[in-house]
C-alpha cells in the first residue's frame, strides 16, 4: 500500500474510532445526571440504579476516548508533520483550551465515579454536570480546530510564509459555529438513539422492564429532540458550505455544472467522466433554495473548480446521501415518539414503536461517521483549504502501511472488547444494578 494512502486511512480510522467514544463520553454524562437528579429529588431507587449503570458506561467510554484522543494528539505529528509545523501555532488555541476542559472533565469524573457516599450528594451531582459541560466544551473546541482546516483564518499566507498569526481569529474562523453546532447535536442524536435502542431491546425482551423503561425515556427524549433540531443545524451548515466551500457542496450533491434553479439530487450514481448522475431523483430548484435561500439562486458546480483541486465526488456524494437519509429516518421516528407522548399514550406500550427504536440503534452513529466522511473527504485534496495539500503534509518516513495495519488491528480488538463489556453490563443489569429486580422476578413467575 502506498504510504500516503496508508497515512490517510490510519488517520481516518483513528478519528472514526475516537469520535464514537468522544461523543458517548460527552453526551452520556447528561443522561446520567438527569437520572441522578430524579433520584435525588424523588428517592425512587430505580433512578439511582440507572445512574449507577450509566456511570459505568461513561467510565468505559471516557477511558477509551481519552487514550484514543491522546494517540491522535501524537498522530497529527507522526503522520502530518509538515501540516503541524505550520498549522500548530495558528490553530493551537482551541487545543490549549481543550487541554483545560479535558483535564477538568477527568477531575470531575474522578469525583463522580468514586464519590458515592463519600462527598455531599449535590456536590456529587454537580461533578457529573461538570463532566458533561466540560466534555461538550472539549468537543466544540476540537471541532473549531477542524473548522479552521476548512476555513483557514488568523494568518496571512505570503510567498509560502505564514505571517501575522492571530490564534484568536483562527479559532473563531467562519466555519467554527456551524460545524460545532452540527457536531454537538449529532453527538446527542447518535448517543441518544444508541442508548435508547439498547434499552428498547431489553424492554422488548421483558427483562428488568421498570429499570429499562426509565432509562429508555430519558435517552429517547434527548435523542428525538436532538433529531428534530438537526435539520435546522444542517440548513445552517449547507448555506455556510455553499458560501465558503462551493466545491464541497458540489461534491456532496454531485453537482457538475454551475446553474440557477439547481435541482436537489437524491441518490444516484455519479459518473465523473461524463459529468452526470445516473438513476437519480431530481427535485427542481431545491438545491438553489437550500444553498442560497432563493429558488433561482446560482449554485456553483464542479466546472468552476480546476480538475486538480476537485474533491472525490462519489465518496462525498454517497456519504452525504447516507447521512441525510438516516437523519430523515430519525426525524420521522422522533415525530412518531412525540405523537405517542402527547396524543397516543397507548403507542408507548406497543411493540412496533420499540421495534423501530431497536432498528434505529446504530443509525445515529452511521450518520455521524458519514457526516465526518463528507467533511474530511469533501475538503480534499487540501489539508488546509487553498493553502496546503494533504500530499505535501505527509511524513517522509516510509512503511506507514505497517503502522496502519497495526493501529487497525488495535482498534478492531478494542471495539470487540468494548462491545463484550457493554453486552455484559447490559445483560447483568438485573444482578448488578436493578435493586427492584427480585420483586419483579417474583411477579413474572
Amino acid at each position, binding site marked *: 500500500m502506498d504510504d500516503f494512502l496508508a497515512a490517510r486511512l490510519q488517520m481516518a480510522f483513528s478519528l472514526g474510532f475516537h469520535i464514537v467514544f468522544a461523543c458517548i463520553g460527552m453526551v452520556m454524562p447528561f443522561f446520567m445526571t438527569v437520572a441522578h437528579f430524579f433520584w435525588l429529588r424523588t428517592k425512587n431507587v430505580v433512578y439511582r440504579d440507572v445512574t449507577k449503570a450509566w456511570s459505568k458506561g461513561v*467510565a*468505559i467510554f*471516557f*477511558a*477509551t476516548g*481519552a*487514550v*484514543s*484522543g*491522546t*494517540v491522535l*494528539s*501524537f498522530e497529527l*505529528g*507522526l503522520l502530518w*508533520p509538515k501540516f*503541524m*509545523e505550520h498549522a*500548530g*501555532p*495558528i490553530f*493551537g*488555541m482551541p*487545543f*490549549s*483550551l*481543550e*487541554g*483545560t476542559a*479535558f*483535564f*477538568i472533565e*477527568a*477531575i*470531575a469524573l*474522578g*469525583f463522580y*465515579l468514586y*464519590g458515592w*457516599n*463519600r*462527598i455531599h450528594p449535590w456536590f*456529587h451531582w454537580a461533578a457529573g454536570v461538570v463532566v458533561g459541560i466540560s466534555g461538550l466544551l472539549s468537543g466544540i473546541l476540537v471541532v473549531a480546530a477542524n473548522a479552521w482546516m476548512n476555513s483557514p483564518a488568523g494568518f496571512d499566507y505570503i510567498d509560502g510564509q505564514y505571517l501575522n*498569526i*492571530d*490564534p*484568536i481569529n483562527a479559532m473563531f474562523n467562519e466555519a467554527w459555529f456551524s460545524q460545532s453546532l452540527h457536531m454537538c447535536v449529532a453527538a446527542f442524536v447518535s448517543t441518544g438513539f444508541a442508548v435508547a435502542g439498547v434499552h428498547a431491546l431489553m424492554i422488548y425482551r421483558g427483562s428488568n422492564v421498570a429499570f429499562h423503561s426509565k432509562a429508555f425515556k430519558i435517552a429517547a427524549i434527548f435523542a428525538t429532540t436532538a433529531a428534530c433540531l438537526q435539520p435546522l443545524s444542517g440548513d445552517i451548515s449547507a448555506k455556510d458550505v455553499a458560501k465558503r466551500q462551493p466545491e464541497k457542496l458540489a461534491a456532496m450533491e454531485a453537482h457538475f455544472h454551475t446553474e440557477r434553479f439547481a435541482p436537489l439530487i437524491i441518490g444516484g450514481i455519479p459518473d465523473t467522466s461524463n459529468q452526470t448522475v445516473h438513476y437519480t431523483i431530481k427535485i427542481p430548484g431545491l438545491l438553489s433554495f437550500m444553498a442560497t435561500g432563493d429558488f433561482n439562486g446560482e449554485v456553483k458546480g464542479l466546472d468552476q473548480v480546476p480538475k486538480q483541486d476537485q474533491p472525490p465526488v462519489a465518496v462525498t456524494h454517497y456519504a452525504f446521501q447516507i447521512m441525510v437519509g438516516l437523519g430523515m429516518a430519525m426525524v420521522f421516528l422522533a415525530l412518531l415518539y412525540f405523537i405517542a407522548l402527547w396524543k397516543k399514550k397507548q403507542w408507548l406500550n406497543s411493540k412496533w414503536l420499540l421495534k423501530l427504536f431497536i432498528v434505529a440503534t446504530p443509525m445515529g452513529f452511521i450518520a455521524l461517521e458519514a457526516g465526518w466522511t463528507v467533511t474530511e473527504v469533501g475538503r480534499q485534496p487540501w489539508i488546509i483549504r487553498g493553502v496546503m495539500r494533504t500530499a505535501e503534509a505527509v*511524513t517522509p*518516513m*516510509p512503511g506507514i502501511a505497517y*503502522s496502519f495495519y*497495526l493501529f487497525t488491528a*488495535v482498534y478492531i480488538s478494542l471495539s470487540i*472488547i468494548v462491545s463484550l*463489556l457493554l453486552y*455484559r*453490563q447490559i*445483560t*447483568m443489569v438485573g444482578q*448488578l444494578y436493578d435493586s427492584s429486580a427480585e420483586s419483579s422476578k417474583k411477579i413474572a413467575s
Partner: protein
Amino acid sequence: MIYVVIVFLWTAILLYILLGGADFGAGIIELLTSKANKSRTRKTMYNAIGPIWEANHMWLIIAVVILFVGFPKIYTTVSVYLHIPLVCMLLGIIARGTAFVFRNYDAVKDDMQKVYTPIFVYSSLITPFFLGIIAASAVSGQIDTQANDFLSAYVFSWLSWFSVAVGIFTVSICGFLATIFIIGQTHEAADQAHFIGKAKRTIFIVMFCGALVFVAAYVEHIPLVEWIFGDTPGLIAIIAASLSLVVTFYALNHDMPILLRLLAGFQVTMILFAATYTHFPDIVLLKNGANLSLLTHQGQAKTIESLGYALLIGSLFILPALVYLIYSFQKKKDVYPDH
C-alpha cells in the same frame, strides 16, 4: 511570556513523571510482586489511585499541546525521527488505559481478567521504558536529520545502549515512586513492613540503573558526566538528591509517609532538573549539532502570548480542582452513607 510557557512545559513533564510515573509503577510493582501478595498490593494501590487515575495522564496531553502549539519545529522533528518509539509508547498507553478500566468495569469477573491483567502490567512496563528512550534520544544527539537510509534516520536515531539504559532507569523510577506512594496507603503493620522492605530494595535498584546510564553513556561516547556535573546548579541538584536519600532511609524506618512522598518528589525533580538544565534552552540535540532550542524555535509572539494566557487561566481551574480531588479521597470513607 515565553518563560511562562517553558515553565508550564517543564512542570507538565515533571508532573507526568511523578503522578503518571507512580501510576505506571503500580503496574510494574504488581508484575514483580509474588503471587501471595498480588491481590493485596493491587487493592491497596487502586483504592488510592482510582479517583485521580485519569487526571494523572492529562499532563502528557498538556505537554504535547504546548510543544505543538508553541514549538512546532521541535514537535515535528521528534515526531518524524522518533516515530517508532513514539508508536510503541502509544500502543502502551492504549493497552494500559483500556485494560485498567476493562478489568475494573467488567461486569463478570471471569477468565477475561486473565487477559486484562497481563496487558495492564506489561504495558505499565513498556510505556515508561519507551518514554525514557524518547527522552534520552532527544537529548543525546542521536537524531540525524541528514541521514539518507531508513536505519540511520528512523532506527539508530533512538536505538542505542544509552537510550535503552535511560528507558530502564525510567522504569525503575516509576517503581520507586509507586512503592513510596503505597506506604502511606497501608494501614496494617504487616503490610507496611512489607512495602517498606520493598521500597528499600527499589532504591538500590534505582541507584544501580542510574549507574547503568552512566556506563552506557561512556560506551556511546556521550559526555554525560560533563553535562550533569559540569555546571554548578546541576551538580548541586544531584548532590541534594543523593543527600536526601539518607533522609529517605531515616523516614522509612520511622513511619513518616508524607515526608517520604515529599522526598521522592524532590529527588525526581532534582534528576529532571539536572538532566534538562545543562542543555537549556536547547531541548532536542541533533547529530549535526544544529540543536533545537526553546528560545530560537518558538512560535510567533502572538501564539506564545495566547498560549501563555490559556495555560495561566487553565491552571486557575485545574490546580485547585485537582488538589481538592486528592484531598477529598484521602478522607475516611462513607461520610454520606444514606446516599
